[in-house]
């Protein structure tokens, strides 16, 4: 005989009952030892075993039985241990130890290898029409917010453009794919960036910074072309999509506190990734410059000029920024000369 609580279906009433397990069925007896129900064992619907919580057994259309777990009752209810494998894993030291090892390892592999790889594959299959749409919409949005029309004179623009065409023809690149446009931007300052459809935007402030020197402009434009050639925008987008999906999926049902925590770690992961892309674009530019016989020192020079426009950087910055530290990039450019 085993004591249990019996909740007859449909009401909040609760009866203290005794369970008498037979070979084929279980008898539910009330406090006066009168038989309330005789149920075949096959009709019992026990909820899966879980830690030391009350065992709950649904009796279809009859009600619910609930009782404190005892080894004897457990063996009566859960005929085979195999069906309760989750419970076994959760309660075995080996299961917990293995999980403790494998969870960080899996997360590391997912964020370090699987997501970037998936992002790269995904970026390659995005059709040009979608990329073009994304680029025109983004440019429109930027024009309405951070960018203003360029204040360079038409002849200044013309000189830069014709030189740009010349550079493109020196490289084995599709000339029609890339367009250079000029904007002024107070919020971005001296800057250049590429949209994934091959539109490259340089700010007036940047042209001023490099004192309209073509060789310097070439260096930075090659860096931007590197971004486009390697589908960096699409990779970044899919990377952030995949990682936020993974984080939200596995950790969404945790409280707001952890949300903030997860937000910070996403930013860190994200920044590491975009740093990698910057290195890739840098090395693309350096390689192309060597191929077309340009002086890679120019690349280092532009970066030095950029460095003067920003406050001093430290190693902690590298964790918080999307770009690698400029002094490391300059060192990398100088190293490429040899």
């Amino acid at each position, binding site marked *: 005989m085993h004591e249990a609580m019996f909740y007859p279906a449909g*009401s909040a*009433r609760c009866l203290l009952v005794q369970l008498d397990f037979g070979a084929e069925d279980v008898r539910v007896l009330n406090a006066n030892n009168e038989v309330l129900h005789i149920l075949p064992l096959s009709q019992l619907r026990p909820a899966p075993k879980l830690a030391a919580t009350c065992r709950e057994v649904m009796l279809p259309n009859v009600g619910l039985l609930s009782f404190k777990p005892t080894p004897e009752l457990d063996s009566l209810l859960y005929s085979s241990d195999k069906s309760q494998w989750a419970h076994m894993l959760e309660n075995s030291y080996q299961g917990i130890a293995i999980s403790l090892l494998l969870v960080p390892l899996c997360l590391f592999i997912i964020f370090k290898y699987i997501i970037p790889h998936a992002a790269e594959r995904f970026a390659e299959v995005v059709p040009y029409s979608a990329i073009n749409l994304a680029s025109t919409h983004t440019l429109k949005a930027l024009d309405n917010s951070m960018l203003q029309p360029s204040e360079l004179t038409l002849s200044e623009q013309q000189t830069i453009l014709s030189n740009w065409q010349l550079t493109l023809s020196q490289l084995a690149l599709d000339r029609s794919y890339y367009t250079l446009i000029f904007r002024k931007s107070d919020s971005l300052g001296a800057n250049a960036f590429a949209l994934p459809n091959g539109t490259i935007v340089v700010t007036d402030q940047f042209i001023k910074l490099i004192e309209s020197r073509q060789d310097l402009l070439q260096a930075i434009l090659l860096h931007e072309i590197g971004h486009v050639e390697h589908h960096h925008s699409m990779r970044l987008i899919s990377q952030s999509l995949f990682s936020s*999906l993974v984080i939200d999926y596995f950790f969404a049902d945790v409280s707001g506190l952890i949300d903030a925590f997860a937000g910070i770690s996403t930013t860190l992961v994200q920044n590491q990734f975009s740093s990698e892309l910057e290195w890739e674009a840098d090395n693309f530019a350096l390689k192309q410059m060597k191929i077309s016989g340009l002086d890679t020192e120019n690349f280092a020079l532009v970066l030095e000029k950029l460095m003067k426009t920003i406050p001093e950087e430290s*190693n902690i910055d590298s964790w918080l920024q999307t770009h690698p530290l400029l002094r490391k990039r300059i060192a990398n450019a100088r190293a490429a000369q040899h």
Partner: protein
Amino acid sequence: MTNNIDYSNYSFEDLLSARAGLDADLYPERAVELDKLIAQKAPKIESADSTVQSAVLRQVQVKFHGKTSEFFGIWIVNILLSIVTLGIYSAWATVRTHRYFYSNTEIDGHCFSYLANPVQILKGRIIAVVAFAIYSIAAAFSPILMLFFIVAFIFLTPMMIILAVRFKMRMTAYRNIRFGFNGKYGDAFVVFVLLPIVSVFTLYTALPWVFKKIDEFLHNNMTYGQQKFTTELRSSQYYIASIGALVLALIIGALSLFALGASFSAFEAQSTLGSSFSLLTVGIMFGYLVIFLIASSFYQAYVRNHLFNSMQISNVASFTSSVSAARLIWLHLSNLIVLVVTLGLALPWIHIRTSIFYANATNISVLAGITDVVEGVQDDTSAIGEEIANVFDVDIALG
């Protein structure tokens, strides 16, 4: 089906509940027999007027029996299984986690049950992931399309909240009776979309009142079986909680700015590396988080106490909450510190101690009508709303 049940030993109340829980289409013979027996055993005296509030049977504290040592295993094993099954097992993991917390929460000798079916949750999750992917891709490719999505999102949010709360309530049972939620879209739209927008024009002075309306909507529409929850919330309490939280945030903010300024100038004097700049950024981010935690803990403690103390389930139960704001602030701050220091591994401990904290601060007066509660109307509830709300970070806080 002919396996008839012998009802002859049932008392009148047992017969009534057995009849209420019986599916008469499946078991017509049983239903007929039950009706006959009920007619025979019906008491001669008219039952008491149901509008009279039942007497208090017992005053009990909520008990929480969960242990970190048990839950840690469940937590870490479930994460691993979720990852290696590419997320599929996470639906089962969610059910096991919820069951662990529900089954370990005891009121008056009875535990809660969590009834969701993992397959329901999995379906909801798949739909939520697809919706999220479509939204993110659209947002990434076209800011204009994103604008459209944001507008659609505003109109869908009340619906998702209703579905999520309803699912959560329907999957919760106590003494084998499910909870429920009857909120309507129109009301949800008013409290979650319209009123917050209107409050902007009052320069947010109406916001505490909006919070009250939200709590009213959420709690007055909850049911336990066929019994309704009722609350008598007072706007003044929400204003005290909000203004208190604001004042607290301003004081701590001012103090820490002062301290920061002092330490920053000290830094500048000796720093040659210029590293103080980004350390400062991290410090400010952390400071924001801490101030937010303190202020929101104060608000939470105050509002929870007011909400619980003014809430009851007619004839079934009334509630008392005595959360100390100072202790809740300490709980949340120490949780944050431990979480960061242990790189997230202390999460199970944090969940357990938070549950114990809230259980210890909650008392229930069990009323005599509790045994008369019968199951409400059955309906199918899907997990789609809850899952979408989860992925899109729609937060619904229920006391």
